[in-house]
Structures are given as structure tokens and as C-alpha cells.
């Protein structure tokens, strides 16, 4: 079961993160903390999502998740970003019952195993929650409620 958590894709993103480091300019920034484990992330976006940059410290899951987020959301339209964001959220909160769509989530499908570890879902979601806040501050809404 642990192999489903630590899939090669995750370990790979952890060891070789994409897009790591904080860059200027940006329009929205958010800093999120996981109080139980002390993981932190700072994430920045431009208003057109042409750039997403981040820095922080955390476990393999949160770090790999940030790398995957960068890969998936950078350069997307807000609408696309929102759809992916929602799909990732649904996957994480699905307690392992949700079948991920590789076309939407790309490397994100590797996180399917994380959903079975309630204590680690928070780790995987940390960058995504920071992204949502940063995007809102940049004037982009990726809140699922907005769709309806």
C-alpha cells in the first residue's frame, strides 16, 4: 500500500521539483502553513497565470504536489486552471474512491494513493490551497462555487 503513496512520479517530482523558487513580478502571493507538521509554502502567481512560482519546506507529498501544480497550471486560462484545481480536490477528498482522469491531471494522477491516507491529504492540498488564495489576490477566482 505504501508503494501507492510513494509512487515513482511523486518521488521524482520531490527530488527534481519543477519551477521551484520565488520569482518577480507577480500579482498575487499567499503563505500557507500546516500547523501539525510545520510544512510551509509561499506561492506567487501573475494575473494571467503565465508564471507560477513557489518556495517552502515540507514532506515529499507537499513538495511534489507543488511541482505538479506548477506543471499543470502554469500558462493555463483561469477556466482551465479552475477545472484542474477542482479535479485535484475531488481526487484528494475521494477517500480513494475517485478514478483520476490523466488527461486533466497529468502527473497529478499519482496522488490517487494519497487519498487513502487522511493525514496526508492536507500535505497534498497545501500548495493548491495557497494557489487558490494567491489567485484570488491576483483577481482570478478558481473557487468551485463560482462555476455554478
Amino acid at each position, binding site marked *: *500500500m*505504501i508503494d501507492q*503513496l*510513494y509512487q515513482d512520479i511523486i*518521488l521524482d517530482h520531490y527530488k527534481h521539483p519543477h519551477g521551484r523558487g520565488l520569482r518577480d513580478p507577480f500579482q498575487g502571493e499567499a503563505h500557507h502553513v500546516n500547523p*501539525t*507538521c*510545520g*510544512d*510551509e509554502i509561499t506561492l506567487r502567481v501573475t494575473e494571467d497565470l503565465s508564471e507560477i512560482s513557489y518556495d517552502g*519546506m*515540507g*514532506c*515529499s*507529498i507537499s*513538495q511534489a504536489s507543488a511541482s505538479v501544480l506548477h506543471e499543470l497550471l502554469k500558462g493555463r486560462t483561469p477556466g482551465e486552471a479552475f477545472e484542474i484545481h477542482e479535479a485535484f480536490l475531488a481526487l484528494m477528498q475521494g477517500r480513494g474512491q475517485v478514478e483520476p482522469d490523466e488527461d486533466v491531471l497529468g502527473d497529478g494522477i499519482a496522488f490517487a494513493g494519497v487519498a487513502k*491516507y487522511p493525514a*496526508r491529504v492536507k*500535505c497534498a492540498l497545501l500548495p493548491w490551497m495557497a494557489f487558490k488564495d494567491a489567485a484570488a489576490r491576483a483577481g482570478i477566482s478558481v473557487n468551485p462555487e463560482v462555476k455554478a
Partner: protein
Amino acid sequence: MTLDLVQVRADFPILTREINGHPLVYLDSANTSQKPRQVLEAMQDHQERHNGNVSRSVHTLGTEATAAYEGAREKIAAFIGAARPEEVVFTKNSTEAINLVAWTASDFLSLGPGDEIVVSEMEHHSNLVPWQLLCQRTGATLRWFGVTDEGRLDESQLDELVNERTKLVSVVHMSNILGTINDPARIVARAHEVGALVMLDCSQSVPHFPVNVADLGVDFIAFTGHKMLGPTGIGALWGRYELLERMPPFLAGGSTIETVTMAGTTFAPPPARFEGGTPPITEAIGLGAAVDYLNKLGMENIHRHEQEITAYALKALADVPGVTIFGPGTPEGRGGTVSFAVDGVHPHDVGQILDDLGVEVRVGHHCARPVCTRFGVPAMTRASFYLYTTTDEIDALARGLEQVRKVFA
């Protein structure tokens, strides 16, 4: 006398459990201990046969419950060498005990700007945040002892830190993250010299080695049931009776009073003054049974066992490549709580892989974030031992760490 581990372990039902297909290796007793059947049975028997509210009834069940509850107080008072049972105030945990002193201190110490409270950088949040908030409320200043690179309390500035402005010093007896055991003697001497009170957070010491409040010479101690074989929901504040008598009520209500009118209330003497509402009756009885169990094994024997296990563990961990230990590297002046880092692997991941092998350790900042900051890490992995811990379990930990290194190679 050495502990008969086979017999001891047979008393703990949970130790037969499997985790992810492996026998449970519980190395998280500093977080919460497991409970022997003797404690569970004492509570079960009370609830099935003698349940009634205390201090309020003349009926048989109420009288039995009161006798059992007060009997537990007597056992616990004797266990820590209190001068009298009335010096033991039951709380729900250590955190409430510390808050009780911190919330009433503004009154009974008449705290204000210019006054100082001293803690240390080694504190559990429960012995730090209440004092931060007290200082915020009163304008007093919070100061603290630092921690040395070896993970010891830095007492080099003692005379400057504890001075005429100091009203209270509250420090931890044994660190829950570094394992360090602090000898409070010099601090007590200095504090009393300048007229300050000393509180000792004994959450990690009372469970593991003999603690005698008279020998320590301190004014208050806090400890908690669930870390010493007792149930959750029960802890205690011990205070010198003359001090408790000077303190106003905190969680006021039923049982804390002498007489009540709509216009005003007079209060009962300690400990009733501080035990508002229905107390954790069954839990106090459970803690009494836990103390019986600890006494039967002998706190000296328990301590000796843990010293041996700690020595074994320090060595085993040092032998795993890439492992760095935080805090004292030898068993002298430390207890069986060992935090460490695994090179290149986040503690969360260390803990997860160990759990997959049935090895339960705690990861995170251990409610002592300033210690993590002090050592420049966001989190640590911690293995902590108790009277039921075996060398086989330490071996399982070491093997698990090899596995961690393999996954993250």
C-alpha cells in the same frame, strides 16, 4: 530489580495488535502512553458498580464514588510526595493545570508592567503560550532561558534572567522533544532568593522517574494522566497549600463555593475551590489505579529500564547512516525520548514509512516549535519509550530507518 517485560507487556491489551500486517511497535509514549488492563478494569468496575456524583450526595453510590475519588487524590499526593492530599487539584490535563496558574496569576501575583515571567526555549507550547497570553493581558514581560547546542538548558545568564522583577519561573522538568532532564535546583534557589515562584512542568517526568515535590523545592507542578498509564481527561496541578489558598477560583461553579447568593459568593478552600462542576471522576480513579501499577513496578526500576533502552537506542540510531540525533547523545541527564533527523527525508515521510512497518513514532514540531527553530529544522522525528519498550522494538525502528533510506535513496 529488572522489569519482567513479558509479564508487563501481557498487561497491555493493545500490544497484541497488528499494524499494516506487522506487530505493533509503539514508540510514541511521550505523546500518550498505553494503558494496562488494571487501569481499564478499575474504571470499568467503577462505572458498572459505583457510579455516582461526588461531594454532593449522602446516598451510597455517591459516598462510594466520593471515597474512590478522594482515595485517588491521596494516592497521587503520596506518589509525588505532597505534604497533604489537598495540595493536589484535579484538572483535565497538564494544559489546564498550567492555565489555572497563568489565569489566576494576574490576581494573586498582582502582575503588571515591569514584572517578569521566565520560561525557556525548551517548553512545550502548553507551558509557553499561557504565559505569553498572561504577559499580553497584564503588560508583564516574558523572558526565557536559551538552549545549548547539546540541547541543555542554558543557565549561564541565570542571575540576570531571574531578578528582582521576576514573579514566576516556569520550566519543563523533562523536555518532550529533546529528552533533556533539567535539574531545577539552581533555578529554584535563585528564584526564591528574589522572591519569585517556580512552576515545573512535570508532564514528562512524573511518568518516568521518581518525582518528589518536597525534594525539588518548587511551588507548583503540572502533570497529566494519559502519559502515565492513566486515561485521557485527567491531569493534576500540585501547589503548596499556602499558595493555593491565596489563589482565586478559576473554573468556578458547582463545588467551588462555600455559600452563594445572587449578590455574591464565597469560595471553598483548595482543592474544591478549583474543581468546578462535576470532575473527571472515573478518570481520577483510573489515574489512581495507574499510580498503583507504577508503584508496584517501582519508579526506580522503571527509570533504570528506560535508561537501558535509551542507551541501546542512542547507539542503534547512531549506527544508521544519515541519522542525526537532537539533544543529549548519551543517557546521562536525559530520558527515553529521542528526536532525530534522517538526511534528505522529511519527518513526515519517515513516520509514514515506519508506520507501514508497524513502527509508531511521532513526527512534526511536537508542540515545541521554538526547539525546531533553534535547531534549524521545520520538524523532527521522535521515538519515545516506556516501561513496556523492548530492545527488539528498537531494532525494528533501526530496520525501519534502513527502509526509509531505501525508498528515498
